[in-house]
C-alpha cells in the first residue's frame, strides 16, 4: 500500500453522488440538431472546413486546429451543415460564440475510419498527432489540449504519470460510471499514455467513495505496472496540484506546472478518449455527462453527443421545469448557471445539475466579514482568503498579487465555509480577470510607447538630414562665390541682381517711349490685316471647292476679324489717350492702364454681334470636347482606373450637351 499524503484545508460537502449511479450509462441518442462550438478548449478556436448545406459523416473533421494550442472539431453524427453562425454557448457571460450547426439525419453513418490495434508499434510523435487530430482536450473541466500536455520537453524528466479519477465535486459521477463500465479502456488508454511519456511509475488516484469503480479498475489493472491509489474523500482533492501533493507528497511551485516536479496528470475521461482515438480510430465526438438534481425524475449518466442541446438531454432524464430554480453546468462548487436550455453540451461538460429550490436555495444576503479565519483554514492552496477579499474590495491589485491570488484554483471551499455567506470566489474571479485586463492594457501601452518613440526618432532623424543638406548647400554656394571672386569673375548672385535691375530700367524706358508704343500698335494692325486677307482668300477657295474645312476657315477668318477690330480700337484709343494726355498729366501707375485695357477689351467684346459671340463660344466648347475625347481615348488605352474614365466620360457628355444647346441659338442668329 502506497503512502498517501494530505493537503492543507479542504471541506466535506454532502456528496449526493448515489442518485445518478443507480443505472448504467444510457445512450442519449441523436437530437434533431447539434450545435458544435468552434472553441471548446483553451487556446485558439478551430477553423471550419465545411460549407453550409454540405453533408457530413460521423467522425468527419469539420473544423481544423488553428495553431499549436488548439484542437480540431468532428461531426458527432451524419447530417447536413445547417449553419455556421454565432450561437448561445454554455458560458457564464451569456455571449454568443461561433458554432457549426448540424441538422442530423438519424442514419449515424460513419466516415471510413480505422484504429491501430497494436499501438506499441507506433512512434511517440505519431501517437501525439493521433491524439491531436482526434480533438481531445482535457475532459475534467478546463479543456486544455491533451496533445500539448503530453508534448513534454525532453529536458524535464517525468517520474510519475497520474490519472485523475478523483471526481471530488458533489453530484458528479461521470468518471465513476466510466470506471465501473469501461475499466479496460481506462487501463489501455493509460498504457498508451505510458508509452508516450515513459514514466517510472503510473498511478490512478481515486477517492475512497467509489468502491465499485475501484474494484473494477483493480481487476482490469491486474498484471500491469499501473497502481490504483485510494485516499480519503475530501473536496477538492481532484485539483491537479492537490492530487499531486496527495500522491507524491510534493508541492507544485506557485505559478508552476506539475511537470516541474516530474508529474503529468490526465483525466480518466481523457484516457478513454485516447484509447478510442488510437485503437478504434474514433475522434472525440461524445462524452459521458451526469444529469442529476431533484428536478429530474431519473438522474443518471448519459453517453451524449458533443453539441447536444441541454434541453434535449434533460428531457431524456425527465426534467421537471416547475421544480427547477436554475440549471447549472458543472458541479455545485465550481459550475455556473447557464443562460438558456438551448446551449450545447461541449467536450468539458461533465455534469448538468437541475436542483430544486429546496436543494440549492437562493443564497441569503452576504454579511460583513468577521475575520473568523475559517476560509484560510479550508483553503487548499494555503492562501489568506479574508485578506484577499479585503484587497479585492479595495481593488488593491498589487497586494492581491503579493498574496498569490493566481494560485487560487477557484474551488469555492472558502465560500462554502464562510459563515457570513460572502461569495469570496466571485471576488477572486473578478480580480483575476481585472488584473489580466490591466496587464494586457499595460502591454498594449508599452507597445504604443515604443511605436511613438520610434516615430519621434524617425521624424527627428529626417529633420536632421534635411538640416544637414541645407547646411551643405549653403557651404557649397559660399564656396562657389569665393571661387568666383578669386578667379576674378563677378559674384553670380550679384550678377543676377544686376541683370534684373538693367531689365527693369529698360522696361521703364520703353513705357516712356510713346513713339515705340504707337509703332507697335500700327505694326500689329498691319500684320493682322495681312493675315485676314490670306484667310479670306483661303476661305473663298475652300468654299469654291466645297471642302470640309469651310467651317474651320470661317472661324479663323472671324477670329482674325475680331483681332483686327480690337487692334484698331486699341490704336484709336491710344491716339485719343495721347491727345488727352498731352493736356493732362501722365497716368501715374501701371494698374490704371491695365484697368483701362480691360475695359476696352470688354467694350470690344460687347461690340461683337451675338452671332459672332455664339460662334466663338461654340468653337471654344468644341476644342475642349476634342481635347477631352483625346484624353479619354488615351486613358482607355492605358487602362487607367475606372474612376478616372468615368469622370472623363461625364465631362464629354456635359460638353456635348452644352454644344447641342448652343447650336440652335447660333442657327437662329444666322437665320436672322
Amino acid at each position, binding site marked *: 500500500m502506497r503512502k498517501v499524503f494530505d493537503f492543507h484545508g479542504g471541506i466535506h460537502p454532502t456528496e449526493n453522488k448515489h442518485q445518478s449511479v443507480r443505472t448504467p450509462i444510457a445512450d442519449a441518442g441523436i437530437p434533431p440538431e447539434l450545435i458544435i462550438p468552434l472553441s471548446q478548449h483553451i487556446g485558439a478556436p478551430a477553423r471550419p472546413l465545411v460549407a453550409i448545406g454540405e453533408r457530413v459523416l460521423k467522425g468527419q473533421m469539420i473544423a481544423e486546429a488553428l495553431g499549436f494550442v488548439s484542437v480540431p472539431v468532428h461531426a458527432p453524427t451524419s447530417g447536413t451543415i445547417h449553419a455556421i453562425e454565432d450561437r448561445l454557448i454554455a458560458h457564464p457571460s451569456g455571449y454568443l460564440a461561433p458554432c457549426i450547426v448540424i441538422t442530423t439525419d438519424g442514419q449515424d453513418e460513419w466516415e471510413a475510419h480505422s484504429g491501430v490495434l497494436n499501438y506499441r508499434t507506433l512512434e511517440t510523435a505519431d501517437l501525439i498527432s493521433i491524439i491531436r487530430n482526434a480533438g481531445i482536450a482535457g475532459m475534467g473541466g478546463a479543456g486544455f489540449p491533451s496533445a500539448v500536455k503530453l508534448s513534454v520537453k525532453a529536458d524535464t524528466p517525468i517520474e510519475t504519470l497520474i490519472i485523475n479519477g478523483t471526481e471530488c465535486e458533489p453530484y458528479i459521477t461521470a468518471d465513476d460510471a466510466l470506471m465501473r463500465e469501461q475499466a479496460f479502456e481506462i487501463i489501455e488508454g493509460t498504457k498508451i499514455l505510458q508509452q508516450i511519456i515513459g514514466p517510472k511509475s503510473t498511478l490512478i488516484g481515486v477517492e475512497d467513495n467509489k468502491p465499485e469503480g475501484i474494484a473494477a479498475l483493480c481487476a482490469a489493472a491486474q498484471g500491469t505496472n499501473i497502481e490504483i491509489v485510494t485516499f480519503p474523500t475530501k473536496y477538492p482533492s481532484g485539483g491537479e496540484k492537490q492530487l499531486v501533493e496527495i500522491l507524491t507528497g510534493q508541492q507544485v511551485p506557485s505559478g508552476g506546472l506539475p511537470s516541474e516536479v516530474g508529474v503529468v496528470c490526465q483525466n480518466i475521461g481523457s484516457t478513454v478518449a485516447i484509447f478510442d482515438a488510437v485503437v478504434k480510430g474514433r475522434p472525440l465526438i461524445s462524452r459521458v455527462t451526469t444529469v442529476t438534481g431533484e428536478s429530474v425524475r431519473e438522474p443518471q449518466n448519459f453517453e451524449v453527443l458533443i453539441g447536444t442541446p441541454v434541453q434535449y438531454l434533460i428531457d431524456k432524464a425527465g426534467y421537471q421545469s416547475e421544480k427547477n430554480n436554475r440549471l447549472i453546468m458543472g458541479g455545485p462548487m465550481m459550475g455556473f448557471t447557464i443562460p438558456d436550455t438551448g446551449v450545447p453540451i461541449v467536450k468539458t461538460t461533465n455534469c448538468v445539475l437541475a436542483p430544486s429550490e429546496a436543494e440549492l436555495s437562493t*443564497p441569503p444576503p452576504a454579511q460583513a466579514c468577521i475575520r473568523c479565519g475559517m476560509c484560510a483554514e479550508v483553503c487548499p492552496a494555503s492562501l489568506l482568503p479574508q485578506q484577499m477579499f479585503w484587497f479585492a474590495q479595495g481593488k488593491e491589485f498589487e497586494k492581491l498579487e503579493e498574496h498569490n491570488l493566481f494560485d487560487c484554483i477557484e474551488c469555492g471551499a472558502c*465560500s462554502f465555509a*464562510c459563515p457570513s455567506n460572502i461569495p469570496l470566489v*466571485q471576488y477572486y474571479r473578478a480580480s483575476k*480577470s481585472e488584473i489580466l485586463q490591466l496587464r494586457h492594457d499595460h502591454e498594449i501601452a508599452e507597445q504604443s510607447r515604443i511605436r511613438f518613440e520610434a516615430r519621434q526618432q524617425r521624424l527627428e532623424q529626417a529633420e536632421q538630414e534635411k538640416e544637414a543638406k541645407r547646411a551643405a548647400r549653403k557651404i557649397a554656394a559660399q564656396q562657389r562665390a569665393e571661387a568666383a571672386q578669386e578667379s576674378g569673375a563677378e559674384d553670380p548672385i550679384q550678377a543676377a541682381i544686376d541683370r534684373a535691375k538693367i531689365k527693369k530700367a529698360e522696361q521703364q524706358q520703353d513705357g516712356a517711349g510713346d513713339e515705340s508704343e504707337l509703332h507697335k500698335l500700327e505694326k500689329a494692325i498691319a500684320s493682322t490685316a495681312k493675315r485676314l486677307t490670306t484667310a479670306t482668300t483661303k476661305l473663298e477657295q475652300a468654299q469654291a471647292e466645297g471642302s470640309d474645312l469651310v467651317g474651320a476657315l470661317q472661324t479663323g477668318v472671324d477670329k482674325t476679324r475680331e483681332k483686327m477690330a480690337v487692334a484698331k480700337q486699341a490704336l484709336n484709343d491710344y491716339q485719343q489717350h495721347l491727345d488727352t494726355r498731352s493736356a493732362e498729366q501722365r497716368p501715374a501707375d501701371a494698374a490704371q492702364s491695365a484697368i483701362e485695357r480691360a475695359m476696352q477689351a470688354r467694350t470690344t467684346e460687347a461690340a461683337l454681334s451675338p452671332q459672332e459671340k455664339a460662334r466663338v463660344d461654340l468653337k471654344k466648347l468644341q476644342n475642349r470636347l476634342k481635347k477631352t475625347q483625346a484624353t479619354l481615348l488615351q486613358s482607355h488605352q492605358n487602362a487607367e482606373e475606372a474612376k478616372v474614365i468615368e469622370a472623363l466620360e461625364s465631362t464629354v457628355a456635359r460638353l456635348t450637351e452644352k454644344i447641342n444647346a448652343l447650336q440652335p441659338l447660333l442657327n437662329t442668329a444666322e437665320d436672322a
Partner: protein
Amino acid sequence: MIDLLTQHPLLAAIIALVLLAAVFGALLGFAAEKFKTEGNPIADEINNILPQTQCGQCGYPGCRPYAEAIAGGEAINKCPPGGETGVQALADLLDLEPLPLDEEHGEAKKIAAVAFIREDECIGCTKCIQACPVDAILGAAKQMHTVISSECTGCDLCVEPCPVDCIDMIAEEESLKTWHWQLPDPVSRRVDIIATDVIPSNPNEGRAA
C-alpha cells in the same frame, strides 16, 4: 603633535570632524560623478503610468512630454484616457492629493475605441498618416489607407485632418473575448457561484436528496 591634541580635545574634535567631512565629501562627489543617472527616473515612472494613447489632450505632444512636465510640477489631472484611476496612480506615486479629472481636457471615455477608415471614401491624401502618433495607419499617396486596429490607441488625432471625413471612431463592443467576471454586487445576491448557496448548520442535513 599628539600631546597638543590630547591637551586640546576641542581642537582634536574639530580636526577629526574636518578630516572626516573632507573624506566623505570627496567620496560623495566622486560617486555623484561616477554613478550619475541618465535622464529623469521619475519621468520614466510617470510615463509608465500614463496610458500611452499619445492623444495630446493634456496639451503636450505625447505622453512622454507630459510625463516630463509632471516631473517638473505640472498638474496630474490632465489625462482623460487615463481616467480617475490614472490620476490616483499618479497621486500615489508622487505622494500628491488626487485631484478630480480636469474637464477642460476632455472627459474620460468608458469604452476604448479604435479608428476605422471607410476605405471606398478615402482619397489617399496621407493627412491621417502624418497625424497618427503611433504609425498605426498604413497607406501611401493616392492609395487607400487603412488603420492597423491592433496598434491604434484611439487618440482621435486622425479624425480631424481627414478632408473627406471618412474616419470613424468605433467603440469596441464587449464580446466573449473581452468579457470578464465582475465584482459581486453587494445588493443583489444573484451570483453564479454555487458553493455559497447553502450553508447548512449541519452538512449532513437538508442537502441530501
